[in-house]
């Protein structure tokens, strides 16, 4: 498991060798929405800003707070769905990365 001590800063880009596992995990932390902003054109998928308290669990007990807090700013073509039915958004089955079919 990744453990961060002190201050760490990174920038992660999909399709880049610089992408980190933590970024992979973070990419789905609050993936909020997807839509075509102007019809059939590839455009913005989602965007957001957040603060995250990170915990680690390594057994059946209570997770421990990692010595850090995090903040994420991102935009992505990632998608989400709502099992409760409030939002049901399409998947990017064309796999062209624009977040729309």
């Amino acid at each position, binding site marked *: 498991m990744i453990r961060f001590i002190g201050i760490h800063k990174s920038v992660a880009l999909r399709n880049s060798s610089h992408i980190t596992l933590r970024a992979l995990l973070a990419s789905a932390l609050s993936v909020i929405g997807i839509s075509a902003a102007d019809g059939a054109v590839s455009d913005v998928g989602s965007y957001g800003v957040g603060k995250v308290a990170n915990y680690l669990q390594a057994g059946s007990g209570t997770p421990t707070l990692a010595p850090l807090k*995090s903040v994420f700013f*991102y935009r992505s073509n990632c998608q989400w769905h709502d099992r409760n039915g409030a939002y049901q958004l399409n998947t990017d089955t064309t796999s062209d990365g624009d977040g729309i079919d």
Partner: protein
Amino acid sequence: MLTSSTLTPPATATGSISFTSNNGDTKVEYHQYFASSSDLNAAFPDGNYQFSINTSTPNTYSSSLALSSLTYPSDIPTITGGTWSGGALIVNPNISNTIVWNASNATHLSFTVSNTGIHDTVLNSGSGLPTSYTIAANTLQPDQSYFVQLGFANGNIDTTQISGVQGAAYYENSTEFTIETTPEPDSGVVLVAGSLGVALLSRRRAKA
């Protein structure tokens, strides 16, 4: 596709944000880690965060998300049950496995398993957040480690500033843990077990 973007924090922020992106990137992300919440809040206080997003259409989208009036969820995501060993949750990948966790009154939940395509993000629309996820048989590979993230978040969603697009401001508790899968049965052991079975069956038939 994204071409360039800027994000401006509240005027009282001491931290700065820089995105590095190339034409054609589908995702740009910035994150920074701090030793304490006070350090985090000093660098990036609550307030309005201004987005300016440029795309190849071309279009420029502007939006402001209010990271304010939010609190971290009261519940820490915690996996319950299962077999743990060496700091990891042990599962047999050849069968379906249901990962179970505690309930939360947060507004959002996310569950991610690395390298599997499992990204489950759910909004609490009044009927509560799920407390489990079933990983289908053979989704995971034998004798592998997977990093898993479970998050509870309280957030605000804006769907008006950029038409048809959702922006989120959120506070989140995120728990990470490791799943380790059991190895395939050793082929030699399988061969011996099979041979013993055949021998036993033959002996029974001989007696009959």
